[in-house]
């Protein structure tokens, strides 16, 4: 479990991405719940470093043995880093989705875009409901 102060910073989208804000830099990945729904992940495509992404816009693809799914960014910004280690070994996304297997880092434009996102408790409730 993440520490108490880190927990408060992590937010979640309805598309099952998590986002952690540190100053104006955000780290984005997909949730444990998302990986359980997807199954074994075998391919990851990430947005290019230097590209701009718009809130709720397309920011990559994950493919499981079953299907391809788009990744969306919960907030707008400029991609400053992407995680090549999950491109080389996509199975990392299944084993550690909410820490080591982050997807990309953003320099965000507008931190108020975080306001509409869910906290962990809200997300857990949401994912349970959307599962049933």
């Amino acid at each position, binding site marked *: 479990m993440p520490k108490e102060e880190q927990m408060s910073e992590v937010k979640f989208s309805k598309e099952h991405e998590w986002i952690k804000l540190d100053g104006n830099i955000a780290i984005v990945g997909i949730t444990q719940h998302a990986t359980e729904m997807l*199954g*074994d992940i*075998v*391919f990851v495509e990430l947005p290019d470093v230097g590209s701009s992404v718009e809130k709720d816009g397309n920011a990559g693809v994950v*493919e499981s*043995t079953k299907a*391809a799914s788009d990744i969306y960014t919960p907030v707008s910004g400029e991609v400053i880093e992407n995680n090549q280690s999950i491109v080389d070994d*996509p*199975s990392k996304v299944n084993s550690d989705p909410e820490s080591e297997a982050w997807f990309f880092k953003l320099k965000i434009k507008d931190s108020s875009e975080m306001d509409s996102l869910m906290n962990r408790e809200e997300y857990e409730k949401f994912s349970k409901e959307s599962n049933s």
Partner: protein
Amino acid sequence: METKKTSLFNLHQKYGAKFVEFAGYQMPIQYKDGIIQEHKFTRSNSGIFDVSHMGQLFIFGDDNLIEDLENIFPIDLKKLNLNQSKYSFLMNKEGGIYDDLIITKIQKGYLIILNAACKNQDYKIIEEKLEKKYVMNLDESLSLIAIQGPDAKNVLEKIIPNSNKLRFMNGNKFYFKETEIYITRSGYTGEDGFEISIKNEKVEKFVELLIENGSKLIGLGARDTLRLEAGLCLYGNDIDQKTSPIEANLKWAISKSRIEDSYPGSSIIKNQIEKGVKKLRVGIKPKTRVIARGDTKIFNEESKEIGKITSGTFGPSVDCSIAMGYVDNIYSSLNTKIFLEIRGKKIPASICNLPFYKKNYAKGGTNV
């Protein structure tokens, strides 16, 4: 139409199956371990597959039945010995494939294993062609189980003594708790293995014994990655009513002695064998890990569209993206550079040999 359940439904649930609807049946796509682990376990140990949704068609008759069936299937049935199995096709008059199937000579007739989605239509087509002269039974009282992998022979031998004496593509009657069962040495994974036809009321106990002896239930997800690594066709994806066995690169399944004979589509097949085909099924390897799924368009180096992917996935045992599809015949030679259009990007790929994974079929009958 209500979805059907196989006799193993409760056992699937017990082992944590996720279900999907497939050909009108609730079938397990995967269990708790997931597709990749299930795939690898089958290749290293053994896996059990519930394929009870497939059709088990029995046709009984005299010597005339051989003649009449040869007018339907492009194989030399006179040379098919008792308990021997052959891969064949039910074809339309254009040489397209209604279904691919395994036909086995049994006492007083034949057992034909049909694809689940095709079995009812197949029955009607065959019944009509045989003019209702013979006893036909698409037997719903029987389940069908496959056990596949290097340990399959040892696991099955513990429960059914002497099953390991079967040669590849041969079958026989055996007994399980005083009930007759029919086992063939065959499969759909590229591994040595068996298919067991067994009464519905006995199948759960039988599978539990296989599990107790070290095998594991494997879902349809891994069945698909295993068969694709083995270069085997999935009906509805890689072959259908618009593809002929020759275009599908399955010429080996048409008996040489039958090429001059008459069967549905025979003149088209003969012409394709003599003059060649416009499109051909080939193996395809993308240069990256991206998955090239069915309907992905294939282009040549000059950006001309030359074909389409019919199946694509990640191959857990070969650790790369694998696919097959049809290309214009002039682009079908080994190592030809092609491009796949995936999400708007052109991904380099090349034509490669099938299978992706080398087969491990049993050679002899007594290789203990």
